[in-house]
């Protein structure tokens, strides 16, 4: 179960500047949930002063968020973490690869890249067509390729087997399940493609204070919440 939440500051204050790939820490005030939940920023509309979150029901916390109703308020910290780099060379071929709910940060990233004059393509993967999210929104921004494991939409197979990857690619931006990101990183390394991935390590604080969310990198253990969630794959020990 997936759903999109659109949120505006309850006090009417102006949203801060948000980079694509940054996330929020949201309090799901429901029995059995203690810590905040990290959720990527899916889209930002500065005119309407809103952000969108795309949430997949994983457990009690996300279920509570999905049951929020219009005009409910939630306690949220934002923006957190470092985003994707948006400084690709002009005229590069950029591929934004997302799996499952991992597509979330790619929408805002795609918009931002487009704003800076880039032409972006999306490669979205899922188990089946019904799990491909926000296709229309992505189509507004760039060309969309689809992979589904059951072949019910787009090409059948994993994203890493999609024909859109056969031609030259300059930059990959990827978010999804770890095995998918690792497979993509592997291809990128082999073909010398610049590649950034967004990790989803378990977080407590989201502020760099607790050191719970670490990823073992070439620089040792670093916090995903502050030095990530987006990492250049060259930094990872994958």
């Amino acid at each position, binding site marked *: 179960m997936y759903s999109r939440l659109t949120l505006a500051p309850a006090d009417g204050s102006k949203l801060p500047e948000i980079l694509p790939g940054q996330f929020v820490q949201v*309090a799901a005030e429901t029995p*059995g*949930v*203690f*810590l*905040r939940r990290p959720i990527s920023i899916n889209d930002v509309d500065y005119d309407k002063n809103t952000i969108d979150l795309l949430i997949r029901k994983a457990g009690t916390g996300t279920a509570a968020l999905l049951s929020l109703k219009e005009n409910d308020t939630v*306690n949220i*910290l934002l923006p957190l973490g470092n985003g994707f780099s948006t400084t690709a060379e002009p005229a590069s071929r950029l591929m934004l690869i997302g799996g499952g709910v991992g597509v979330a940060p790619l929408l805002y990233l795609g918009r931002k890249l487009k704003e800076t004059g880039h032409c972006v393509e999306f490669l979205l993967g899922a188990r089946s067509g019904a799990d491909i999210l926000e296709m229309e929104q992505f189509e507004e921004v760039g060309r969309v390729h689809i992979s589904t494991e059951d072949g019910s939409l787009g090409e059948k197979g994993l994203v890493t087997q999609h024909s859109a990857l056969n031609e030259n690619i300059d930059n990959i931006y990827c978010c999804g399940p770890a095995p998918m990101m690792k497979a993509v990183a592997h291809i990128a390394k082999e073909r010398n493609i610049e590649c950034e991935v967004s990790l989803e*390590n*378990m*977080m*407590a*604080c*989201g*502020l*760099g*204070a*607790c*050191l*719970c*969310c*670490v*990823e*073992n990198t070439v620089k*040792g*253990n670093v916090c995903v919440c*502050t030095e990530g969630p987006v990492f250049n794959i060259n930094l990872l020990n994958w």
Partner: protein
Amino acid sequence: MAKLSVNIGSLSLKNPVLTASGTFGYGEEFTPFIDLNRLGGYIIKGTTLEHREGNPYPRMVETPSGMLNAVGLQNKGVDYFINNIYPRIKEYDSELIVNVSGAKVEDYVETARRLSSLDKVNAIEVNISCPNVKEGGMAFGTTTKGAAEVTKAIRSVYPKTLIVKLSPNVTSIADIAKAAEAEGADSVSLINTIMGMSIDVERRRPHLSTITGGLSGPAVRPVAVRMVWQVAKAVKIPVIGLGGIMNGRDAIEFMLAGATAVEIGTANFIDPAVTMKVIDYMEDYCSRHGINDINEIIGEI
């Protein structure tokens, strides 16, 4: 307005609110949310003699009203702290307290010795109770002999305020506290995390890379309050209370049980501005209860 200042050893804290080591980074992480200068003090990350990478990921799992962590003292070592971090954070008008850990007595001693030279660090908190490291750590905190040994050795090189942080994983925490007091500790703080464990029943494996970890958060508060009450009755030095403080009410609960100051830990993850709210609550509580000096209520139970 009531007087909120309290004394711990030679420190005079502007109010009883400190932050708990390992939950507040180096303080800087919280400046977008709070005015660090308003804190009684801030206790920073566990610091060891040498750089430590800590334990492998995963290091955290949520539990009912709490969390288990197995960070394992990841830090860049005392020299890096002195040269790179201390200069950045020393200018806040709030007591900067360094939490010190080690695997061997000599490591504690050398770390303390190096820290003693820092102008703005007037106290260290010695962690003899970390359940997340293999050697040393908790071992010292679970016997009166171990606690006495570490305290004595550090006392001989560290002239400023020495706080010993106690482990709750013991039969009689009051005995451990008395051992630290006897060897010259200026204060004891308690509790550190309670050793716990959690299993992913679907994957049939532990949630933490280290199998066991340290439990913190409101789940442990009743245990922490009880221990603070027992220790405050057993020692003459001031006691610093912590464990599951989520708000001002909880902080006052620890003070009534005998704590002279409190530390806020895991609550910083839920609400990074919680410390300011606790200070506000204390002021309000004192005025509602006609208390002129918060010291009046310490150990009232």
